[in-house]
């Protein structure tokens, strides 16, 4: 083998080795970053998909769209609107929709409820979905000011 050929081969091996090293380093750094910022992965996935599927961060986190008929939605008091599908994906897998539709909060209030569920009830990080969910909830289930007693709702009948 000529010396030039040997040099060529060595250079080739060196370049290949460097590329492999770079690849390994970027994978390690990437993994570390994604572990610290799991929401990046969600954002990435959402950009690639028109569906709002979110990666499995915890075992019980849902990853499929839930089919609800208009009648089923009406029965539990949910209304159509932007963010509904995310609510069905993230909220009603664990508890009934009735727990949502009974309650009334401002944006801040709904965020507090989400934080409480995350701290004590095993709710996962909602990532980018959170803003849309909170907007939906605070728009359709906002508190209405009322007096110190609620009015009686009366159905009259003959005693």
């Amino acid at each position, binding site marked *: 083998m000529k010396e030039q050929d040997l040099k060529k081969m060595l250079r080739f091996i060196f370049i290949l080795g460097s590329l492999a090293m770079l690849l390994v380093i970027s994978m390690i750094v990437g993994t570390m970053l994604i572990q610290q910022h799991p929401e990046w992965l969600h954002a990435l996935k959402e950009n690639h998909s028109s569906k709002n599927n979110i990666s499995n961060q915890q075992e019980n986190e849902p990853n499929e769209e839930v089919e609800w008929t208009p009648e089923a939605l009406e029965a539990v008091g949910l209304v159509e609107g932007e963010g509904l599908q995310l609510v069905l994906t993230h909220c009603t897998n664990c*508890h009934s929709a*009735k727990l949502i539709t*009974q309650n*009334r*909060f401002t944006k801040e209030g709904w965020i507090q409820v989400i934080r409480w569920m995350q701290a004590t009830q095993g709710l996962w990080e909602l990532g980018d979905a959170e803003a849309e969910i909170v907007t939906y909830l605070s728009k359709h289930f906002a508190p209405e000011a009322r007096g110190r007693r609620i009015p009686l709702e009366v159905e*009259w*009948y003959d*005693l």
Partner: protein
Amino acid sequence: MSLATMASILGAEIVYAKQMLNDYIPIGINEQEDLKSLGKDPALKVLNDRPWNVETPIHLLDDKVTPAEKMFVRNNGQLPKRPDPGSWKLTIQGESVKSEKSYSLSELKSKFKQFTFQVTLECGGNGRGEFYPPTEGNQWGQGAVSCANWTGVRLKDVLQDVGIKADAVYIGYYGTDEHLSGDPKKESISRGVPIAKAMEEETLLAFQMNGKDIPLANGYPLRLVVGGYPASVSGKWLKTIAVRNKVHDGAKMETPSYQVPIEPMEPGEAIKAENMQIITSMPIRSIITYPKSGATFALSAALKIRGHAWAGEQEVSKVAYSIDFGSTWTSATLEKPVNRFAWQHFEAQIKFPKKGYYEVWAMATDDQGKSQPMVVPGWNPKGYLNNACHRIAVKVT
């Protein structure tokens, strides 16, 4: 559960029933629980079906002793699969027992003297729906309450049989209701009471309600029954009692669950955990169970009203009613409680001065002189202890 029962719950014959193992419960059973399969009156109001939270309309609480089908349901986790009472064991453990000990249901029944008490069980969140700003949770009206006959053995007798150390300060319970998320590492609820409360004469390990098996949704086959405190301390589907040398730290013992501000607070404000305390005795309350709100009747007829009143660990000494929005009050006839922690019955005959719309308001007063407020009382972050007066609308024609 018999094949016929399972078929009726499923709404279909189990075609290969003979091929099923003994004691096998088809998976369809748990999925399809409804008010009927839970043995509840269809007129009860389902606030939530996962977890089950079902309220009794006030006029259906008219019975002196609440029947099973009219008893409210407040579940925190998944409804347990129908348990097998034959293999059920209760274990007493914890830092402050001399040694861990287990009892089968038949051992509990044969080894200890049995007692029956009528005990009012009321959800700490009863009345939450009227707080403003709204607070998180099931938006109960005023029907998250019951008073049934509970039969069982005294927790005190069982704890004495186990042997507890002098450093015991609290007990905590554990049941078989899994967390809603299905995560086996999470508890749905595990609360408890101070040891002195656990050792009270009326604190029971109950295996019967109104002389029959306890309904599944209310804790079959074994539950704690602790009078006067929020019903959440009366643990259902009871498997374990831990005798603790500190305040129990199970699920929903933490702030803000079942805690209220030590000092009154401004509605809607934030509050630090150290300024909250665990609810002990429930407040005084009364309900008019007859007639149902909305009655119309002739001026010539006197209106008979009746209902119940209770006051947590205290006794009710007076119930009064008003037909003029609290300007004047008239005493109703009030019965003594059957035993400590049982609700008390009241009744009155009312003559109305002229035709028109009225509201009949009821207000109870306890033996320490505390009455119910006419307006919603002090706001708290989770909306507990709203004992504002109950009222019904009537029209005299």
